[in-house]
């Protein structure tokens, strides 16, 4: 056993005394950090795919392709009939989802659509007519599709999809690092906020100063982290090349969905926009 010099405990540390905070009440930082933590917690979790193997339902690249082409289709389309067809297809996809996903998607779509409506409200009021209403409908449809993709797809599936679609490695690298980072930085920020919570025993005199410091540290961390990550990847033989995964499009569902996409595009072409 190592002998060390015994230090004297100061008297204040030897008594048990709970000191009253400077001033009671909700501190600004505390309130906001709680909200932020909730947000970050949600963010730090990947798309919720543990209930059912949703991922295997479609090949990642087909799913990405379908989402992108549907969004394109919706924005090009001026024909109510085609818009209606797309809606039917979308509803079909939604109906086979487990209820938990369904609720989440609907909530997201409704909230973001309301936001979008607020933005286009002036134009609806200024130029009344079918056009702006149709425009709003299309926006909702696009938001629905994006929300569907976001809720049912993991980051890994997105990377796989990009690989399968022959995206340049530099693009994938950027996306991959950004995504990995966002998650890790989110977790890091969450931990810092927890540390602040633990020592928030009263009103902070300068909440903005603490917030400034937080972002300063976050910046330093990002920088150090990027360098370290790249070094670690290099040390493990990363040459900037992403390996292609083997699963390719041959499932009947994949083909069916692609066929559907093509049909809709064909309709758009024949019926005119």
């Amino acid at each position: 056993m190592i002998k060390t010099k015994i230090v004297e405990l100061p008297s204040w540390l030897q008594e048990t005394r709970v000191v009253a905070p400077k001033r009671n009440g909700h501190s600004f930082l505390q309130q906001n950090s709680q909200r932020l933590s909730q947000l970050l917690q949600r963010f730090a979790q990947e798309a919720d795919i543990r209930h059912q193997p949703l991922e295997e339902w479609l090949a990642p690249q087909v799913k990405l392709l379908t989402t992108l082409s549907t969004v394109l289709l919706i924005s090009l389309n001026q024909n109510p009939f085609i818009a209606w067809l797309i809606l039917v297809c979308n509803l079909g996809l939604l109906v086979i989802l487990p209820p938990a996903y369904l609720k989440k998607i609907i909530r997201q779509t409704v909230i973001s659509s309301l936001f979008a409506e607020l933005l286009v409200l002036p134009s609806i009021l200024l130029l009344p007519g079918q056009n702006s209403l149709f425009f709003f409908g299309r926006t909702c449809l696009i938001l629905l599709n994006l929300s569907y993709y976001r809720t049912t797809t993991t980051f890994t599936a997105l990377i796989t999809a990009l690989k399968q679609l022959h995206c340049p490695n530099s693009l994938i690298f950027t996306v991959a690092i950004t995504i990995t980072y966002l998650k890790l930085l989110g977790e890091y920020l969450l931990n810092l906020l927890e540390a602040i919570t633990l020592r928030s025993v009263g009103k902070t005199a300068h909440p903005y100063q603490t917030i400034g410091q937080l972002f300063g540290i976050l910046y330093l961390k990002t920088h150090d982290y990027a360098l370290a990550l790249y070094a670690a990847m290099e040390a493990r033989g990363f040459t900037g090349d992403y390996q292609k995964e083997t699963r390719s499009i041959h499932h009947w569902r994949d083909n069916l969905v692609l066929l559907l996409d093509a049909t809709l595009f064909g309709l758009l072409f024949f019926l005119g926009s």
Partner: protein
Amino acid sequence: MLTVQHLNYHYPTTCGLNDINLQIKAGEFVCFMGPNGSGKSTLFNILSGLKIASSGDYYFNDALIDAAFLKNAKRRQTFHQQIGFVFQNSDVQLFNLTVADEVAFGPKQLALSAAEIEQRVTDCLRLTGCSEFRDRVPYHLSGGEKKRVALASALALNPSVLILDEPLNGLTPIAQQQMLDLLIQLNQAGKTILIASHDYNQIKQCASRFVIFNEQHKIVHDLSATDLTTMPELGQKLTLI
């Protein structure tokens, strides 16, 4: 002082804690041991109020600690004042521009005089051996230095319970011994100490009680130090955790 009943915690994809029952009296020095991933850090996060159990109850001084309790600012602040927590990764625990500011962050929020605050900061830095770097930026300190600053910041609030998640990791043997000596003294002064450690031989000189987790996130042993001395084969096993 701390009572935990049928506590479970589930992460989105894994189990964190499985039916934990525990009662800790004021002034105890409890060491938590168990394999990696057995749930020690998770339990500490719940005890310090950072996480809320998925099911089961946690009482601190007879008050049920749940979301409703923590929503009330005054109660939450008093609660946090009484529990000091040093994270397993103290990298994420420091957010001020100088070490002195870091330690002063808590006391500054209390109705203490400037002289009292300064006194607390100086004392805590001295006790943890951080006096030399009081004006440095915490972010650029070494891992061991950060651990000590984190302990100093927790001590500055004079908590009655200290929760330390593997505080000895990354310290030199001398610094480890200094920290243990400090903990023994704090314990003698009446502080309750909960510590997670993987070094049985070292921790057995101060802990009075051992709580052992298994891989299934359950408590398998809850023994006093004297009980443990009568079970040499278990002690032998603990040296390997």
